[in-house]
């Protein structure tokens, strides 16, 4: 894990479900083929209603036409991020688009678990109402050790919740790496 994650943020509201993160019609592409998997980046967050896409203004594409990488590597959202389907394509699509951290008030359970066990990015929780405090495009800096998020654009600093039980798995890089490290699976 990096000590500091910095970059531009893309801001979303409450209850962003997995159909908005990656619409079901795109769940057909291979996740292992290096070219084909780019489709997931291309369509990441493509079903978020236009008015809510990139708050507060909306109508901001997460990934520009023709690209599969987003200019935004940190997502800030409200409560219940990732509700709905168990499709691991959702956190992986964000990963393929270049997301390194998601900061939400809370997560839906399966999505959170997939984010951690797949080792796709760091899913932080915060008690702060960040999605009304930050604007899409703001420069953000997350300091892992301090557990803080600094909005470089506004100069404000916010506290993130400790990662808790899952920190070990995230540090290892996912459930397989963790299970090998802890001796549950034989190392290769």
């Amino acid at each position: 894990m990096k000590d500091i994650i910095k970059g531009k943020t893309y801001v979303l509201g409450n209850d962003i479900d997995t159909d908005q993160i990656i619409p079901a019609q795109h769940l057909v592409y291979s996740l292992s083929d290096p070219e084909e998997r780019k489709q997931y980046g291309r369509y990441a967050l493509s079903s978020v209603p236009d008015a809510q896409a990139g708050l507060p203004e909306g109508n901001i594409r997460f990934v520009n036409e023709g690209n599969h990488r987003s200019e935004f590597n940190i997502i800030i959202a409200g409560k219940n991020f990732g509700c709905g389907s168990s499709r691991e394509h959702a956190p992986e699509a964000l990963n393929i688009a270049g997301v390194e951290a998601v900061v939400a008030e809370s997560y839906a359970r399966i999505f959170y678990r997939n984010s951690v066990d797949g080792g796709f990015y760091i899913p932080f929780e915060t008690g702060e109402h960040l999605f009304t405090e930050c604007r899409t495009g703001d420069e953000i800096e997350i300091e892992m050790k301090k557990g803080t998020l600094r909005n470089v654009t506004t100069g404000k600093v916010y506290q993130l919740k400790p990662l808790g039980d899952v920190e070990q798995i995230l540090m290892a890089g996912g459930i397989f790496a963790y299970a090998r490290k802890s001796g549950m699976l034989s190392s290769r």
Partner: protein
Amino acid sequence: MGMTLTEKILAKHAGKRHVSPGDNVWVDVDVLMTHDVCGPGTIEIFKREFGAGAKVWDREKVVIIPDHYVFTQDPYAKRNIDILREFALEQGIKYFYDVGSPNYKGVCHVALAEEGHTRPGEVLFGTDSHTCTAGAFGEFATGIGNTDAAFIMGTGKLWLKVPTTMKFVFDGEVPPYLMAKDMILQIIGDIGVDGATYKAMEFAGEGISMLSVEERMTLCNMAIEAGGKNGIIAPDAKTLRFVNERSKSKIDVIYGDEDAEYESVRRYNLKELEPVVAKPHSPDNTATVSEVKGTKIDRCYIGSCTGGKLEDFRAAARILRGHTVRVDTFVVPSTTEVEKRLKDEMIDGESLFSILKNAGAKIADGASCAACLGGPPDTFGRTEGKEVCISTTNRNFPGRMGSKQSQVYLASPLTVAASAIKGEITDPREFF
């Protein structure tokens, strides 16, 4: 201190005498289910992590049920089914319900039950969030992603945190105009789409005892729509009859303790409940049908794991018999067994199939998930524009049924059928 049903099942599978909410435990898995959308990714991770020649931990405990994108010309979707087929053959998977074969079933959650893979006291994981459906059989069942599924494929184990349990008690008898769909939408509306996040939802009371096994499946199916980890109902004679007719496995029935501790208990008096819909675009955006009646609709949809079981069509047919639908009404049986029974089961000498057909419904040629989750562009019943649809499915997120502009109302099969006849949202009690 006693344990709830969920805690007792997890304790047994963790090899512990006692577990408490919040404990992290490794549990032994009885069944792992996967399908065409998440199976290929799971297989890929399994091979990457355990080696190209690795074998699944138990070829009789991995159940593979293609169901999502079955009747499409999409080349990627077809390839995904080929990947499942090849893997099933290579691994000697005993329960693979292949597309185009006499074994083909359709929607995994209904097929799992029909084929006897859902059994009291067991632990079932599936790469689909609606795997919680199987809690109707008194087991712990929940959805997981590809990575976790690949881990189980190789080890037969998974870690999880023991959830607290929220209890929902339904007092009184279920009136004829109410269905399990109304009951669960009522709960989701009351507690919100994250009201049960990380928690077990246990359903109990006289109303639950009255419900058929299929209706109990509807209730547990939508636990995930409140964020629940699992939905669960204590097994009774109905459960055991259903399971014993379909499974030869030795069953170890588990019941919760009398002195179990619940995080909360919520009671409902069924006499006071009314038919409910969830308005666009969230399952917790609920209203009673009487509050939204008269809302114009463009189409109706009856299908899916939650709303395409035999009992759902039986309910719809009771309303539709002798009437004609005023809007496009799509009917998709969840499984091949349901499809067959639509033709066998009669109401006053007329088959359910013929009642639906004569009412003007468009009946899918084949069982699958179809447009419940949109799917490839050539999917039967998929929304394409600004349609307003009332559906027996379980999700109405933006774009869920295809088009981002369409609006989906969720309701019981009775309400959807009544609405189909009038072309607007209609209270089924008008047809009683």
